[in-house]
């Protein structure tokens, strides 16, 4: 229908339109998007469950606006599945004429998963994305574990870094992915990153999925 209307217009108007469009193209404004969220913990298991909480979500932004969201919790206990203290989630972002940025950080204090199978004194998940004329990138810099112990093995002393997507088997339980990183975007006009610092995948005896636990999750993304 649009094409038919287009064809019916006078040639003088068509010429004017083409000239106007060509002149306007260099100044064409590309719509930017920005998103971010962070949460302390999540569990979905046969023994207990908790929704993503405390969760901070960056409000929808338009134009050249910016905002921040922050939430906190003194602690959380889900039976023998999960216990953690001092949870904080912060996400911020802004749209600019030349750059767009989003940053998210989720932190927890003393944490115990599956009755001490995994423990940490602190967990920090960090995701930051920004886009400029030179491209779009995301980073997990600043994501750390404090005194992390998995199945009796100490993987971090003090504030330490574990290689992205480190997978460790948990016999009889499933496996855990530490510093799990899920990237998105093309790196040119868009970029996004989700960092799940501790992601336990529970498996049944046949190897099927039986639940999951996440502690420390941060997501940021920018794009157009």
């Amino acid at each position, binding site marked *: 229908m*649009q094409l038919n*209307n*287009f064809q019916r*217009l006078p040639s003088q*108007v*068509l010429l*004017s*339109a*083409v*000239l*106007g*469009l060509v*002149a*306007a193209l260099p*100044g*064409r*404004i*590309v*719509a*930017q998007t920005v998103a971010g969220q962070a949460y302390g913990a999540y569990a979905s298991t046969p023994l207990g469950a908790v929704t993503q909480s405390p969760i901070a979500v960056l409000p929808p932004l*338009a*134009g*050249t606006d*910016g*905002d*921040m*969201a*922050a939430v*906190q919790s003194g602690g959380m206990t889900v039976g023998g599945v999960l216990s953690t203290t*001092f949870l*904080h989630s*912060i*996400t*911020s*972002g*802004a749209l*600019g*004429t*030349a*750059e767009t*940025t989003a*940053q*998210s*950080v989720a*932190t927890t*204090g003393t944490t115990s998963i599956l009755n001490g199978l995994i423990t940490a004194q*602190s967990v*920090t998940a*960090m995701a*930051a994305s*920004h886009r*400029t004329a030179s491209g779009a*990138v995301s*980073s997990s*810099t*600043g*994501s*750390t574990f404090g005194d992390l112990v998995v199945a009796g093995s100490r993987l971090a002393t003090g*504030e330490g*870094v574990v290689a992205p997507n480190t997978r460790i088997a948990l016999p009889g339980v499933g496996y855990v992915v530490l510093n799990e990183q899920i990237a998105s975007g093309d790196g040119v006009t868009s970029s996004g990153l989700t960092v799940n610092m501790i992601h336990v995948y529970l498996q049944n005896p046949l190897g099927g999925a039986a639940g999951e636990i996440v502690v420390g999750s941060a997501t940021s993304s920018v794009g157009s």
Partner: protein
Amino acid sequence: MAPPLPLRIRVTESTVQEEDESLMTAMQKGLLAGWSLVAAGLLVTACENQTETPNRPAATQHAAFPPHWGGGEECTPLKFTGGGRIDPPNPDFPDGASGVSTMTGKVTFGFNVFLGTDANGNCVVTKGEIEVVDHPSQTSWHVSIHDGANSLDGSEVMAFTYDDDSGRGVCVQVGTNGMLARVNGNQGTEETRLTACDNGEPGSQQPGISSSGPDALNWETLNHGSTDLTYLTGGNIQAH
């Protein structure tokens, strides 16, 4: 004390309408408007709006901190956003750091502030949210500013910007003479001040890697000490 800022006409960003339209839609608009589309576009691009906040109680009751800066105050850029972490003290100090951190260990933060001028020409925060968490002491602070007023006491939150000493970027100081922050939810209030510097991308490096954060942050409190100006070990600060 910093000299009073002269009355200036401040330029805020124009609201940019998102365009996610197809080429055909754009051409149809061109059909209807012709060259007027170009003129309108140029007008929007060049449009500069002046924003002044309503008269607020002057922040004279906030005398918690002496201004760090003795000159060269500006009020641009008009928007700063950031989030991430610092781990004071850093092995290397950014330009402008005192070298003394009385709040040490992991500190995480997020903020978004818009600057403008009040009726007297002072540079103030017109809109903003700030969250800072000191993990060793398990203390958090939150500042919320709407329509040029701190939500806690209704006062203006003074601010200014300046070129980073290194010449790499620009800094903003928010709560020049202090701003009241909520502590640990609703467990009290405290005078605070934020300084944030955008010195390039990426804004941070992992903890333990020396120097060139390059972005830096300083969080000062009346009762819990100060981080000193410290390079980011995660996240980013962006001046818009």
